[in-house]
C-alpha cells in the first residue's frame, strides 16, 4: 500500500462519514456544513486522480456556489440557531428506493467498464493540458455527449421553474 492509497482511504472515509452526517444531523445548518466537508472530500479524490480541473470546478461550483447558497437560504428562511425538525417525511421509502437504484445502476455500469481494474498511470503535463479542450469539445459534439449535456440543462431549467412555482405567492383573486 503506497502513500496515495492511504490518502485515498482516509479521504473516502471522511467523505462518506460527512455524507452520513449530512442526513443524520438534526440541525439544518450543521447538515449544510457537513455537506461542504463531503464535497471537499470529493474534490480531493479528483485531485488524487490527477484531474486538477475537476477538483477546482468541484470546489467552485459545489462549495463556492451551491453549498454557500444553501447555507444562505437556510440562514434567511429558518431560525438558524435553534432549527430542529423531523428528519424524514412520509416519502422516505421512495427516497431509499431511488438511492439504492442509483447506487446499483452506477455499480453495474462501473463493473462493466473496461478500465475498472487498471491502475493509475502518470500523465505528462502536455497530456493533461490536452484533456480539458478534449472534454470541452466532447460536451458540445453531436457524436459524444451533447444529448446528455442538454438533457441535464433541461432538467435544471425544470427545477428552476418548479422552484419559482412553489415559492410564488398564492393569490386567491387570480
Amino acid at each position, binding site marked *: 500500500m503506497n*502513500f496515495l492509497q492511504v490518502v485515498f482511504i482516509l479521504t473516502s472515509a471522511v467523505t462518506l462519514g460527512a455524507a452520513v452526517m449530512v442526513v443524520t444531523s438534526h440541525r439544518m*445548518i*450543521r447538515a449544510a*456544513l457537513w455537506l*461542504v466537508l463531503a464535497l471537499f472530500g470529493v474534490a480531493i479524490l479528483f485531485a488524487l486522480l490527477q484531474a*486538477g*480541473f475537476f477538483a*477546482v*470546478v468541484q*470546489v*467552485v461550483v459545489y*462549495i*463556492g*456556489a451551491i*453549498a*454557500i*447558497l444553501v*447555507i*444562505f437560504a437556510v*440562514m*434567511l428562511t429558518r431560525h*438558524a*440557531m435553534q432549527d430542529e425538525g423531523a428528519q424524514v417525511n412520509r416519502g422516505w421509502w421512495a427516497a431509499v428506493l431511488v438511492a439504492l437504484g442509483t447506487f446499483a445502476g452506477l455499480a453495474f455500469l462501473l463493473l462493466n467498464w473496461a478500465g475498472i481494474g487498471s491502475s493509475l498511470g502518470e500523465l505528462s*503535463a502536455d497530456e*493533461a*493540458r490536452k484533456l*480539458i479542450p478534449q472534454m470541452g469539445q466532447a460536451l458540445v459534439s453531436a457524436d459524444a455527449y451533447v444529448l446528455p449535456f442538454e438533457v441535464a440543462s433541461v432538467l435544471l431549467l425544470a427545477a428552476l421553474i418548479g422552484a419559482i412555482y412553489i415559492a410564488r405567492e398564492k393569490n386567491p383573486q387570480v
Partner: protein
Amino acid sequence: MTVEWFRDPVNFITNWLNQFLLGWGLPAGVVAFLMNLIGAGLVATGAMLFCILLIWYERKLYGRIQDRLGPNRVGPWGIFQPFADMLKIFAKEYITPRGADVIPYNLAPILAVAAVLLIWAVIPFYNGAAGANLNTGALYIIAVGGLGELAIILAGIASNNKYALLGGFRAIALLLSYEVPMVLALLVPVLLARSMGMNDIVQAQGDVWYIVMAPIAAFIFFLTSVAEVGRAPFDIIEAESEIVAGFNIEYSGLKFGMFYVGEFLHAFTVSVLFAILFLGGWRGPFVDQVPVLGAVWLLVKTGVTYFLIILLRGSMPRYRTDQTMSLAWKILTPLALAVLVLTAILDKALVGSSDLVRGLALVGMNLVVWFIASRLSQASYRRSHPVEPPIGHAPVINPLVDEIGGVLE
C-alpha cells in the same frame, strides 16, 4: 555559478536543496513532498510577515490622507508599531460566547486567513518562480475565494449573536453579488491569453498590458476586488458606526487578529492579482537577462494598485446596502457580460489578423461599450431621480439665474 545564483535564486536554491536531499538517499517522492512543504511554508510565512509591514504602510498613508501623522512613536517613523500591536493581540484573552458552535466558531478565523494565503500558491513572482503553475490558475483563485465566504458564514452563524448573524447576511449578500461581475471580468484576460494559468497570462502580455486592451474588464475587476475585500466604499459589511463590527463581533484576541490580518492580506493579494492580470505581472525591462528582477516589477505594480485601494478607502464615503446591490447587479454585471461576449466574438473574428489590428479593435470596442453604458446609466438615473419643484408653492425664479435658464427651488 555565482551569476546563476544572482539571476534566479529560487530555482537555484530549489535545485541545490533537491540534490542535497537526494544525496542523502531519500526517495524521490519524499524529496518532492518535502520541497513542496518547505515552499508552501516559506510563501505562507513570507506573506504573513509582509503583512506586518503592510499594516504600518497603510496606517501611515491613511493618516496622511486624513491630515494626521499616523503611527509615529514606536521606532523611526513608527515602523515598529505593528510589532507592538502584534504582541498586544497575542496577550489578549480568548472569549468564546455562551451557546457558540465551538468547532465552526474556531474554524472561521483560520479559514479566513487560509483562503487568502491559498491564492499565493499560484502567483508567479517572476518567470519560473511560482508555488504551483496550475493550468487552471484563474479557476483556482475563484474556488479559493469561495472558502473566504464560507469563513464569514461560519463566523456569523457560530457566534450565537444577532449582530454577527446580521453582519454575516450583509457580508455574504455583498460578496456573492460582487463575485459574479468579478468572475466575468476575470474571464476576459483568460480569453485574451487563451489560458487560465497565471504565468501564461503574464507571458501573453508581452507587447501590451491587458489594462490597455481590456480597460473595462480591468475597471470592473478592480472595483469588485475592493468590494470582495470589504474595503471602503464597500465596507457596509463591517460598518463600525452602524452594526458594531459585523460577523466578527464576538471574536477577541488573536482570533480577531486573524480576521484583521486576513483582510489586510486580502487587500494586498487582490492588488497582486490585478498587477498580474492587467498590468503585465513580472514583465518589465531586463527581465530576460535577470529573471529575479521580475519580482521587483511585480512589487512596484502591486504597490501602485494597493496605493489606489488605500486612496479609495480614504476618500470615498460608504455606499448604502441597496446602492452596492444595484451597482453590482444593474451596472457591473450587465457591463461585464457585454464586454465578455463582445471580446469573445471580436477575438474569434480577428483570429488571423495582426496584433495591432486586434488590439485597436478591442480598445475601440471597449470605448463604444463604455460610451453606451454611461449614456444608459445616466438616462436611467434621470428617470429614477426626476427634478421636481417642491410641492405647495411655486418655484422661486431668480431673475439673475433665470437669464442662464436656472430655476432655484
